[in-house]
């Protein structure tokens, strides 16, 4: 009986650990999407940013080991990580230049950059490895896992803190949590956050207040690139240990949906990203029952749409309640 409870708890925590893992790339990307969205620039290129970051990270870590065979092993993944972040941010910078300097429509430029990222990564991969599919033939590195010591065999907490294989969570899983906290704090409490939101909400007012709106939008887009790159690096150097053509697999678009689903608020956005991560894990587990895979893969989009509808409906009911209360006072007076 109590054993069953522990077992159920373990299954639940396995799902939680899996959700955290599956949500990490989406969390990073959606935080990035949130920042640029608040700065008034929707970033459709999150997908491409992730792809480029994953690619640069994996390739750099592999080549770092080839070029610096004497360097300590722990160095390579971190070099890769830095390169990934840089490359992804650079792609976002390109989006910023096209939009802010050259007047390109943001959405189309974003789509264009996604196509560019798709083509460029495979082109370079084929050039470097002779392989158009993945970098499996290269020895690339994963960023380290963090393990809480002394959790061996502790039933529920052990899995929660150290993951289902007791190998610990990847450092970037913690990175995503830290990024969440930082973004929430920075948007709310810093001068930068205030200016960013002002520039996004009413550019004219921000301009009239003497704010460098264009520079703020650059900052928003670059920061969005940096954060989304974190997700890309995790995909190639944490979740998996290789780069695979098109490996972002629509997560950038999901991240964008999370921003809207989360009502343009940091915690809401991350909650939505967690829902999407959870849906992937559920899909992996539901698939073991006889549910058709197609139905399972409809869950995340349907959840998104349902959530948008329910949130609105909830607001509406609340408004109706308030209005009814007001009407009662109006009529009674």
């Amino acid at each position, binding site marked *: 009986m109590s054993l069953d409870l522990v077992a159920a708890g373990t299954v639940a925590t396995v799902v939680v650990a899996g959700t955290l893992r599956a949500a990490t790339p989406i969390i990073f990307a959606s935080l990035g999407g949130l920042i640029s969205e608040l700065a008034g620039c929707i970033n459709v290129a999150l997908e491409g940013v992730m792809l480029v970051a994953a690619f640069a990270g994996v390739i750099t870590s592999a080549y770092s080991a080839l070029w610096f065979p004497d360097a300590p092993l722990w160095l390579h993944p971190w070099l890769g990580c830095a390169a990934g972040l840089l490359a992804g941010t650079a792609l976002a910078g390109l989006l910023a230049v096209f939009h802010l300097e050259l007047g390109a429509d943001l959405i189309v430029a974003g789509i264009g950059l996604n196509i560019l990222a798709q083509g460029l990564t495979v082109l370079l991969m084929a050039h470097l490895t002779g392989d158009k*599919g993945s970098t499996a033939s290269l020895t690339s590195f994963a960023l380290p896992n963090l393990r809480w010591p002394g959790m061996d065999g502790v039933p529920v907490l052990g899995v929660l803190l150290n993951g289902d294989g007791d190998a610990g969570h990847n450092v970037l899983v913690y990175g995503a949590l830290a990024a969440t906290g930082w973004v929430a704090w920075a948007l709310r409490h810093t001068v930068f956050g205030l200016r960013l939101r002002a520039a996004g909400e009413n550019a004219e007012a921000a301009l009239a207040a003497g704010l460098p709106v264009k520079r703020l939008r650059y900052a928003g887009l670059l920061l969005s690139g940096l954060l989304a790159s974190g997700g890309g690096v995790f995909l190639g150097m944490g979740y*998996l240990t290789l780069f695979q053509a098109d490996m972002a697999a629509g997560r950038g678009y999901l991240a964008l949906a999370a921003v809207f689903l989360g009502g343009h608020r940091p915690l809401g956005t991350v909650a939505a990203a967690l829902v999407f991560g959870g849906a992937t894990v559920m899909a992996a587990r539901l698939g073991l029952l006889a549910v058709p895979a197609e139905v399972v893969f409809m869950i995340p989009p349907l959840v998104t749409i349902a959530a948008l509808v329910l949130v609105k409906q909830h607001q509406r009911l609340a408004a109706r309640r308030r209005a009814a209360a007001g009407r009662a006072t109006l009529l009674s007076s």
Partner: protein
Amino acid sequence: HAADGGPPRVAFFVNGALGDKSFFDSAARGLRQAEADLHLATRTIEGGYDPTRWESGLVDLADSGDFPIIVTGTYTMGPLVQKVAPDYPDVTFILFDGVVDYAHCACGNVYSMRFRQNEGGYLAGVLAAGLVRAGTIPGAREAVGLVGAMPIPVINDFATGYEAGARDAAPGITILRQFANSFSDPATGKEIAKAQYGQGAGVIFQVAGATGQGVIEAAEETGRYVIGVDSDQAALYRTSSPRRAARILTSVMKNVDAAILRALRLWQQGRLPLGRTESLGLKEGAIGLADNPEAALAVPPAVRAAVAAARQRIIDGTLTVPTAFAGGRP
């Protein structure tokens, strides 16, 4: 063509893109081999993933007059070849892993070959189930898994054979089967594999293209085993990641490369049996299991013997493996 002096030119039309680490890559390898061994000039054209462009792509190749021979594959291309080939009687079409309906088309210039991948799947099933039943894998229950890309007939054929083999080798064994719904999402592949390993699967057979690489990573992380598909996937990791290679028990080889090389050689010799379909399996050496010394030690001799016995019975014809193709084999 050959008239202008150069070697005969072979076009390989890929209805997708290279880089799947298995099927198309293997075919491309066969063509490269042909270039070296048979002195043919080959060109690979990736048609991309949009099926509305494949027909015009194929016609363009045939129409150009540059290529006396066109190689293409998959069942999807079958109907297109069937439609295009009669218009270009001077061009030879080699269709692998797909067929044209010779009864209903003037396809005297088409040679098609199909593979009995269910036979390879069967051996994988025997191996996986035997190993699991031997009880030497820590943490595993008596269960084996299968991760497929999509429930398309070719993959279902692998799966059908696999499940039959597992059941025959270990009646009552639990078999988990799931599809990732994508050929190119290793992260989802890894998540599914983790779920299956979490449910106690000791071995997973991945038939999932690039998605399968996630399964291999999951095997490494959980310390369980995986069986690769189409080409020797342990070889892929042998230098880059030996730990991972050691988790790949074997790969079910679908020797598309050898089959294409053979067909081209026959064509060069004027002996290619045009106008018919050849069925290739264990017996013809087109299907087989790869040797992976790193993992071989993990397999008890009895299990190895069972696999060898099953292989022999299939080759002898005393064992017929069930297939996912409606109407059975041609």
